[in-house]
């Protein structure tokens, strides 16, 4: 059920990725794909910035694509430019499982809020919690 490619990134302000994980099931050339995925996700930020102004939806389905890879985004906490702790959950995927993706985003969002509520976590800094990582991977297995 897991899609072959799924690269998940949480981006905070100033385009800083604070968490990234390769969640896809394809094991081949993960290393090579990593920079490509980052390129695509990073470039998609341009589109997201455009789109986020035009809609109030949080889940932006397939905002950008590159070849057969699609970027879906979950914009949270108001809009990206307005909120000091705004962030984007971005997923690069090749599957079309929209419902699963939406659930995945929502649950990861909850996880991230928990991280944010941690008084020792500085908003905008990198998430290094291994607990978070395992949870996200479990969610990816479940939904993607």
């Amino acid at each position, binding site marked *: 059920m897991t899609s072959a490619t799924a690269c998940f990134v949480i981006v905070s302000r100033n385009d800083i990725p604070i968490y990234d994980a390769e969640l896809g099931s394809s094991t081949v050339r993960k*290393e090579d794909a*990593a920079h490509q995925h*980052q390129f695509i996700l990073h470039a998609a930020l341009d589109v997201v910035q455009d789109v986020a102004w035009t809609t109030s939806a949080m889940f932006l389905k397939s905002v950008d694509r590159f070849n057969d890879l699609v970027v879906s985004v979950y914009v949270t906490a108001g809009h990206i430019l307005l909120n000091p702790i705004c962030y984007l959950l971005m997923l690069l995927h090749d599957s079309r499982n929209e419902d699963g993706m939406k659930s995945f985003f929502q649950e990861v969002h909850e996880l991230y809020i928990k991280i944010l509520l941690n008084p020792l976590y500085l908003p905008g800094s990198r998430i290094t919690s291994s607990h978070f990582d395992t949870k996200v991977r479990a969610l990816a297995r479940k939904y993607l």
Partner: protein
Amino acid sequence: MDRPATAPADSPLGRLLLEEITPVVMVLSTPLAEEACRKNGLDLVQMLRPFCSFQNIDVPVRTASEQPYRLQEFRLRMVYASKVRQMSPQVAEGLLRQVVSDANADLQPSVPQHEALVTAHDTECLPSWLQTFNRELLHTLSFSGHEAFDHPVACLLVVSTNDDKPINRFVDLFNTEQLPSLLNEGTMDPKILKRYLLLHDNQNGSQEKAGHILAEMRSTYGVHDSRLLCINSAQDMVWDEANNPWLNNKIGELTSRDVACFLSSDDLNEIRDFMQDLCSKCIIPHMEQKIRALNQQVSAIRKGFRNQIRNLWWRKGKEDTSDTPNGPMYTFSSIESQMRVLGDYAFMLRDYELALSNYRLLSTDYKLDKSWKHYAGAQEMVGLCLFMLDQSRKDSEYCMENAFHTYERTGSSVSRYATRCGIWWAEMLKIRSQHKEAASVYVRITDGEPSLHAAVILEQASYCYSFSNPPMLRKYGFHLVLAGNRYYISEEKKHAIRTYQSALSVYKGNSWSYINDHVHFNMGRWYAFLDMFDAAIEHMLEVLACSHQSMATQELFLGDFLRIVKSVGKKLEVPKLQLPHIDMSSLKIIFEDHRTYASSSAVDVGESLWQTLEEDMVPTTFTIKSNWLESSRKLRPLKKYNDASICVIGEPIKVYLEFTNPLKISLSVSDVSLICELSTSSAGSEVDENASATGAQGNVLLSGPSDNRELKSDDSSFDLSKINFVLGSAETRRVELDVTPKIQGFLKIVGVRWMFADSVVGYCNFNTDIKRKHGKARVIEDSSGSSLCFIVVKVHVSFIPFLPLYFVGDHGPTLRVYVQGLPKLEGYIHDLPKKTYAGDLRLLMLELQNQSEYSVKNLKMKISHPRFLTPGSSDNMNLKYPGCLEKQIDSKRMDVKESKVGKSSEKSRGLLFSFPNDIKIQGGNTFQWPLWLHSGIAGNVSLCISIYYEMENFSSDMSYRTLRMNYKLEVTECSSNFVLFMSVIILVTVMGIKSLSSYVGIRTPTAAAGRASPAVRPPPPLLPCLSSHPPPCGPAALSTPLLPQISDLRGSRDANSLFRGVRIGFRLVSPVSGRHRVVSVSVSPETIKSRTGIVFRSGFVSPKAETDTFRRVLPSLDISISITPYPSKLQEFLVRMDVVNKTNAESFLLRQLSTVAGEWDISTLPSHASNRPSQLLLAGQALLCFFKLKVADLFKKKIYVRINPFLIAEGFAGTVIFWLHLTACCVPPQILMCGVKSIDMHSSKGSDAILDSADSSEALIDNSRSPLADFHHHERLHQENFHQGRSSTVDLVLISQLVRSDPGEPPQLFSHHSCHCRVASKSPVWWLLDGPHTIHHDFASSFCEASLVMRIRNCAETAASVKIVTFDGPPLPGEFSDRQTGWHDVPLANDMKVGSEAQGTHLKKPSSGATPPFIWSGASSTRVSLEPDSTVEIPMHVCIFSAGIYDLSNYEVHWSLESSESDSSARDLRSSSGTSRGHPFYLTTLQTTR
């Protein structure tokens, strides 16, 4: 960026269309004609081309509509007939590649920054070669079969006058085989308009001949169709560049000045006239004419309603035949082809309306025919027409998209046309400021294109992104990278680097690590391919520290980097090498001025701590000065350097740095050393200049290769240590680097350098802010040098008396002033145990070494924790441990020592110890001095020792130095272990068989160390009054929440059990999990007989792993002492001592318990003394011992109690309980002092009071001498905090011995000090009920009367009045158990009954409500008054009516003190009156047997 709307024709696309979609003139020429042209370096077409575009021809045009319009500018395309065909892909590829590689791929300069891109106008930024490329790309696609605008409109036949039979040549030219396939295959009309041109070379033949031939031509081909062109009429014509039309028009690479050297300006004009005539008088009218003809034809066939219907029907029938892949083949005569020609001609003549209507008609036809290629072409033109007409934008875009899609769909053979269409489409979108859409169009084009085309197109796409509003810079960067990749694939590395360089401006400083790695790594690699190694290395350095990458990638990066470095050929010096990473915050500089350190741990101790320690040891004159230099006249000129620290020649400055390997592969680092600069200090001013010069020099050096610096370190003014090490994966290593100065001067530690992988030298400057420093340094030079220089380099140093020890972080290099070599002591403490137990008493040896040539004197020592460590005396050195501790027989020697000890202990109270004055340590010598270690209490102690010494020759710059030593004593977290310790101690005490009573008590050892007294219910006959004074901590200890709770305790009370043993069962409930477990224990009769309790353990200990190198003090014996008034004698006390062995693996032999300070006599209880086998206490046992203390006899002040050796076994976790009798007396304080003297007199006799002296071979330990006395003093001071304001206390010292497995080892003594023990009684009035304990009486005859005596003593200093109130009836049951939880109280009445049964006498148990079994006789209350310090005896009587054991405690003593003196209340904090219950007194009455 909405730009002002321009006319479509002025827009870039409009220009493109006007210039590219123009009539084609096919040229056919003879070789001789070509030869004539070639003299000028041009071929015929090239010669004519500059005159193909006409700016102001002003030709009237009349097409289908009758309304003429005028064309202002026009253009023709002259093409050789041989080139009127589609280029082969290879040729096209080569052509385009040429364009790309011609484009100047400047690498470094003029990389458009994206900020600039945003603001600048798009066309200004776009490289012009991109447009050229686009045009060339379009050219490669011309002359296709499905379009007509590339079909030649006319044919120009050129024959030279030198040709043989020129008239015939014209016919031959056209009829040979070289006509293009378009004409031959029927795609276009072979009846093409022909023009005949006679070319005459003026240098080769006369004008007459030419005129003759022309006349002939005119007669043959017609006047209008024949022309003569004379060229080469000039000799060595020199054209200036501006006027040369060929050079202006950039024809290939024809740049030499030979071009057109034979063409005069007349020739030029002639050519121009010819071309203009050709265009305006021939081609345009021809096209007009053709348009009109075709239009009529099309109107007749296709226009009108009837034709439409017919067309529809007719088309349907044609569907079946359309089986070719590109749809049906249309010949020139077909109506579709004619419509296409009509449309294209109209388009070329800019009658867009006409063109549009035809294209629209055409596209429906093609669509019906499913001739997709043609359809797409028509749609494409519809879109372009709409654009040129500036009509509906949407429609035009739709048409373009439709065309694009159709091309794409049709197949790979026409995908190139999709590209052309896309380019037009994108251009169209760009003109309409839809850059984003344009970019996506470009991206779509790239799919079918070869990589080079794709690269160029992607680059255009990226520019589109950057021009869009708002600029999409991330997309810009991404597409640049994509383009770069394609460039690289197609071997255009310069372009690849250029695009990546541009992309880098987007990615610079972002934290998308993989992106950055990819960009930098590829740039590094590509630069290396181009042999630009500097740039390559610069980029490679960026990716070296890629900790997030996989190991394979890291290896790849590193391998490539090293390969590049190797190809550079020389040693590379990199200022900011990331491998290994240096943690600047770990920078720590340690140097020694007058403060020297024995170990690095001593450095870690805060300076303030050392300062307070050395406060009264170090001469004050030095501490007041802000710096050493000020006190030294010799170095006075240098006082401006008072920010600098001081170091000594020959003594290393240590710098600690942490190197971290960020990679997963191990790195070898070699030759790690400091970078230092040392300038000599011959004169102050010179020094100043030097210093600033070196400062400036350092900056220069850092940027460039620093051979200079190497020289500096070689000039042997200082020594540098070099270290090699290998860092494993992700390893961090702390490295110590030394610099040892050898001459006087100023030393500046600039940074650190290291060699990585034997080829790269890395530098790291400690001062991060070079620029600022440099600026300031220059300012200083300008202001002719001032001391500010050093503020620059050491900003943060404050002006405290002692400078900070080390500088952390980027505070900059330190600058130091050196003084001459000085003696330096090094010290260690030998045999400091790694692990000890609390109470350990050891003799250690302090060893001081003087390595220098000079001798030192006047040694002093100060120890931070005298409780743990005290200096011994010189005598201790010769004695053997522990023999020196034992009581000496030789009293004379002791006297001598005593005085010394007294003195030293006096001093040690001031914590300062002076070594004897005559001690000097000569150079190279070693000196030893004993130290006593007493690890008083388990805990975490950092022992600091500071040794002060002075130089023998005071003339030196420093007169003294201090040696600082630090040792850490640490204890493991045993308290937590102890809580886990589910150990339960059941103490069973069964009293004599006759009393037949059993008491069961449970005690849980608690984490509260030390003070927990066992909640033991004592046997009543022996200790009646103990129970009335509950131990202070018992209940609290039991309620400790983490301890297991005990419930359902039951013991068999069967009389027979006494012979079988007692069985006790209870339930343990874990407070955490709630689980419970039933435990049962048997107690053997022997145990019961010996009156010892049973301690067993049901838990376990998890000892903490002993890992680190800290010296540890572990808890050993836990002693708690409680003193209660002795029941049977006044002013005597019972001392109960609990000893808990808290160690996990050690056994202790208890040797001796002694009192200190002399006013107490301690002795064992006689009853216990007889009953003391040398027991091995198994786990879970307790021993009851009783000691008593009496009033100290003046002549026998000092009493030692020797505890007969018994073992506390290994793993033991129980309690040993001693019952001690203490005899209390309130000795006035002044006696105490003289008592000390008398102790010594009689101490040899003190052993008299020791019990069992015969048993033991062990000598007594003298606790009145050093070191025990010293330690005791400190223990006392320490423990005083908890017992403030208490008088009349007693200090007890327990001496124990560790049981060693190897008997050959010297015994290890332990001393435990319990100070300030006091009587746990609050009442100043003590009383004792005394009388017979057992009465035999025949109750059958009468009741029994017992006479008792109550002795009351008033201890207070005032008179007291005491009232005794007696009650009848037994004491209320359950009150005892209330006081001491954990006890299972067995009421006496039951026992009595059991006991009676055993005797076979049946007795009725008196009910509690009935008549009491005994009554007090006499008055119910008695009142007496007592003088201070007096005793009164009151007789009391009790009548007993039946046999049994009775507790005669049902009385109360009310007392009140007469507070006559005002100060007494203030001094005596006790209450002035109170009520006490009676102490239990058990009276056993037995029926006499007859």
